């Protein structure tokens, strides 16, 4: 028993030591072991949407204050226009249809009347309209006057109406509260009259009046994707949706289910059959989930793949989506991520190498590597073409390799087929031809600038055929240049005025495939592009949804970057005078833009969106052309 006590004591001391050590180790770790937090997705990474809340009614506001605040509050999509409704009389609230469309005006509105007058007239310029389906339709800039009729809320309501369709007996829609904060203005808006204006807006029943800035701030332009008639390429169709709304995925999917807008009617198709119903669409932790029901659940595998591609690419652009797109069709769930790759003639990024065609100072066709500015020999007949060439073009990598160039003083269009044979598919009588360009099907497009004929040489054909252009476009204008989109379903057409110089128009038109013995036609609801320019030097599709343009702006050239179908005003860096050619790499995500001056001292430059031109990559070269 005498030796047991020291042993027990030793055990106790050892246990105490272990406990003390364990306690001492429970501080902040200082080891250098590398730990991973996993992949971060979803909320927190997106650019936050800034909610605007216009000030509501207050005592002491003048009628002009009320009108101004109503206009400011009219972009309150995220609050279901609650603030704006509080400025309206009971009758006006019932007539107001804020989702019926948007008349977009630009510039500061002026109100010449006295601020205290019960009738306020706003003078401003309208530039377009966003329809109820969210598609923007530019209209020629027109100055309009909008009359706002206000009533004194303290006085008996006169019962006037802006469109004569007052519904005095109708119940309140319940969307707003007269006195949400107990401080209402004395004046209330009872009627808005803009009869006869462009864009079809006449009254509160026709929707909203929003400035371009308000649209850009409060709305989101997103493409919904359809398929070209061959089902090989996806075609974007821009739609506008309110920002900051949890319903964006559902609204975008509904737009997709509704089919293409008027701008692409006849030029595209959709794999999602009519009658398909949206069950659910939401974004959770960066992943998009869509559930559809109806005929879409019975699609054959090939069509279903196209439908998944349309859904996947459409929803991938929704803010907050940076993960997979899960599509549930009936009882089956598919991962639509990457399904669109099979329907894209464009690569994600450009493979480095000699992927640009240029014409050297001797008129020879050569290859050019923008990475190291090295020239290379172009194999084939066009590379060995004896006479000087201009404006080369190459078909997209996804199609059989065709190369085109202009010869004979830019009057002849030479096409080198994939088998190496060379055809002169067209020879203009007088005028030069516009730089040729290829679409997704391998067709080569150009314009006879002397006659204004738009010409297309289909793949496998050895002669160019004219393309029908809507006569409405040709009133006072003549086609000057055509640039087919990489999807082959759209072209951008530069129209030069026949009446006055420096008045070029640029429109995007749908390409209607040959049918019933007719050739290609341009149709759909032609979409004009907006921006300030006098003439267009050159343009190219920078991505499936955007264009890069070189325009004449005063004494200089300016690069513009436009997204067709949006209200955004084109802006861009000013570039050196004389730079008049631009080419964009055929990729989905952009890449190095190349510009060149074709006259004087030819040279090729790289163009950065914000920094402008680089130093000349190579002098003595002109007409740079990526594929497409």
């Amino acid at each position, binding site marked *: 028993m005498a030796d047991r006590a020291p042993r027990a004591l030793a055990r106790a001391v050892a246990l105490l030591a272990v406990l003390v050590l364990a306690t001492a180790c429970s501080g902040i770790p200082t080891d250098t072991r590398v730990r991973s937090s996993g992949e971060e997705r979803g909320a927190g990474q997106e650019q*936050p949407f800034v909610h605007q809340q*216009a000030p509501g009614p207050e005592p002491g506001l003048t009628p002009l204050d009320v009108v*101004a605040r109503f206009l400011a509050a009219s972009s309150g999509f995220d609050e279901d226009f609650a603030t704006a409704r509080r400025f309206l009389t009971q009758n006006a609230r019932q007539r107001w249809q804020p989702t019926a469309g948007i008349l977009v005006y630009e510039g500061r509105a002026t109100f010449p009347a006295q601020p205290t007058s019960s009738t306020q007239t706003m003078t401003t310029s309208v530039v377009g309209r966003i329809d109820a389906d969210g598609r923007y339709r530019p209209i020629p800039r027109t100055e309009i006057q909008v009359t706002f009729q206000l009533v004194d809320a303290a006085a008996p309501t006169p019962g006037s109406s802006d469109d004569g369709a007052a519904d005095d007996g109708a119940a309140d829609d319940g969307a707003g509260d007269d006195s949400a904060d107990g401080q209402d203005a004395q004046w209330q808006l009872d009627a808005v009259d803009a009869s006869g204006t462009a864009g079809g807006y006449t009254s509160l029943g026709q929707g909203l009046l929003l400035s371009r800035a308000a649209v850009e701030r409060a709305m989101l332009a997103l493409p919904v994707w359809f398929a070209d008639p061959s089902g090989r390429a996806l075609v974007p169709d821009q739609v506008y949706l309110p920002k900051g709304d949890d319903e964006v995925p559902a609204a975008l999917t509904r737009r997709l289910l509704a089919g293409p807008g008027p701008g692409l009617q006849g030029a595209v198709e959709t794999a999602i059959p009519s009658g398909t119903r949206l069950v659910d669409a939401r974004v959770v932790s960066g992943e998009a989930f869509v559930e559809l029901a109806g005929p879409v659940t019975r699609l054959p595998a090939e069509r279903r793949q196209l439908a998944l591609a349309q859904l996947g690419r459409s929803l991938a652009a929704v803010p907050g989506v940076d993960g997979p797109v899960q599509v549930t069709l009936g009882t089956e769930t598919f991962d639509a991520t990457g399904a669109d790759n099979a329907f894209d003639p464009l690569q994600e990024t450009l493979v480095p190498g000699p992927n640009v065609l240029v014409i050297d100072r001797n008129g020879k066709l050569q290859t050019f590597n923008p990475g190291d500015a090295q020239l290379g020999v172009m194999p084939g007949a066009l590379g060995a073409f004896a006479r000087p060439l201009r404006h080369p073009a190459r078909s997209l990598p996804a199609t059989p390799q065709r190369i085109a160039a202009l010869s004979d003083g830019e009057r002849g269009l030479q096409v080198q087929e994939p088998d190496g044979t060379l055809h002169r598919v067209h020879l203009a009588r007088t005028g030069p031809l516009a730089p040729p360009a290829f679409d997704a099907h391998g067709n080569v497009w150009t314009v006879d600038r002397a006659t204004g004929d738009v010409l297309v040489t289909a793949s496998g054909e050895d002669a160019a055929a004219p393309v029908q252009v809507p006569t409405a476009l040709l009133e006072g204008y003549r086609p000057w240049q055509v640039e087919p989109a990489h999807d082959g379903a759209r072209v951008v057409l530069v129209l030069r005025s026949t009446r006055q110089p420096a008045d070029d128009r640029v429109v995007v038109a749908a390409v209607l495939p040959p049918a019933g013995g007719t050739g290609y036609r341009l149709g759909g609801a032609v979409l004009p592009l907006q921006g300030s320019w006098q003439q267009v030097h050159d343009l190219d599709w920078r991505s499936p949804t955007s264009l890069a343009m070189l325009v004449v702006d005063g004494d200089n050239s300016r690069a513009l970057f436009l997204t067709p179908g949006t209200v955004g005003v084109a802006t861009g860096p000013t570039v050196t005078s004389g730079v008049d050619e631009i080419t964009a790499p055929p990729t989905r995500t952009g890449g190095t833009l190349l510009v060149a001056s074709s006259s004087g001292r030819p040279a090729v430059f790289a163009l950065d969106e914000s920094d402008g031109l680089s130093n000349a990559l190579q002098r003595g070269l002109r007409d740079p052309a990526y594929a497409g």
Partner: protein
Amino acid sequence: MRLRLPRFLNRVLPARPWRRVVAAWRRGLRMRVVTTTVVLSLLVVALLGTFLFAQVRDGVLGAKVDSALAETRSGYQFAQATVEQTQEWTPGLVNSRASTIVGRLASGGGEAGRREVLLLPGPHEDSDPPGDVYSSYASGVNTPQSIPPTLRREVQGQQEGQGRTYWAYAMADDRDGTRVPALIVGAALEVGAKPYELYYVFPLDQEAQTLGLVRRTLAVAGLALVVLVGLIAYVVARTVVTPVRMAARIAERLAAGRLEERMHIRGEDDLARLAASFNRMARSLQSQIRRLEDLSRLQRRFVSDVSHELRTPLTTVRMAADVLHSYVSSFPPDVARSSELLQAQLDRFEDLLADLLEISRFDAGAAVLDPEPCDLRAIARRVLDATEPLAERRGSTLELVAPEQACTADVDGRRIERIVRNLVVNAIEHGEGKPVVVTVAADDEAVALSVQDSGVGLSPEEAGRVFDRFWRADPSRARQTGGTGLGLSIALEDAHLHGGELEAYGEPGRGAQFRLTLPRRAGQELGGSPIPLGPDRPRFLAVGAPYQRTEVARG
């Protein structure tokens, strides 16, 4: 209001649980030690936990407030720099800049998405140009209404260019539509000469989760600590209390006469020393008690032997005295008087010897009971008849109070009659000529007889010693009836032999009462007595009642 428990609970729960708990609390040292330790440690843990939680909370929120203030100041400086870049302002430009500032502040720095930025214009003033609209901008789900009005007033009241930040806790909206606690920091800003208020809303849900975790951890740790302390207290108490309890049990056994019981000695600690001391004490006690027992046994044996040895010569003396007494008429008066005295003292000596022998039998455990059903009323009547002459001589009246129905019990009639006679004679002797009342009563369990006088009475101390052998309340008072001083002792032994009780009560100058209570059946436990004893004793006769024997029948 008393709580009525369901019937099944009444069956399950012990009756009067609270009393049981109190009793257990009083009896159980271990329970008191463990309970007290647990309650005290719970108190300490609660206080310590509250203190620690307050420290952690202040630390967490302090760090959050510091970082929030720093971020707000940084945002304020950025906004200020952004505003200063513009010289010409229009309302549209003010709104555009405000929106830009909010977007930039919301996306840059800090934990984007975890806090929201709001830029609110100052209140509308009549001096504002008509038509100018200044909107509020918010990067999240919170609206201007989420900002506490008191905070807005403080920010609005700030002097231009001070750059001071104000903050407050409030409930704010979260992205998932819930309301969460939030820290809101505000500063005043001017955008194009228009006063604006810049607010950062920092949700504190993560801090709340952290504090919740700390709270739960402290609670669990505290609870575990209390349980641990309780267990330790239990073990310690058990270690200490078990030997004490064992000592108590052994002490009880010793007290019960099992003098050979000893404590088990283990180790060399204090408890072992206690056990050793206890055992020494037990041995000493055992030795003393044995010696006293031996002495007592020797005394009893001596008394018994002396009594027996005296009996034979006494018989001879008696016979001789009887012979002398038979010739007393022929003796001269002085010799006759001596013969009479001899006869009387011999009677008394025989009584004393008989009592001593009876006591010796009790001491020797040789007293044997011969029970048979007897009516206590009949015994009382016989005794009263026998003692009536004595009472007449003392000037006392005898009264019997008895029920009409029989008061029967299984008793040894001879012994009970001896008890009653002893009590009645005692009452007459000390009754000072005042009435003596004998009361008989019975209930289902017991029969009782009470003898009550109104004589000199007894003090409580005297009542406690009245059954001692040869004890006299007043030794100076001459014995008038020739009692041996052993009568009440024998009566008590007789009562105990029946499993009954004989009790005395008295008040000095107001008489005494003796109550004999016997079980109805032999071996039955007594629960009470049908006749009250003490101040509530019945008083049937007034003091100084006429000398006659009366009997009162009671229904």
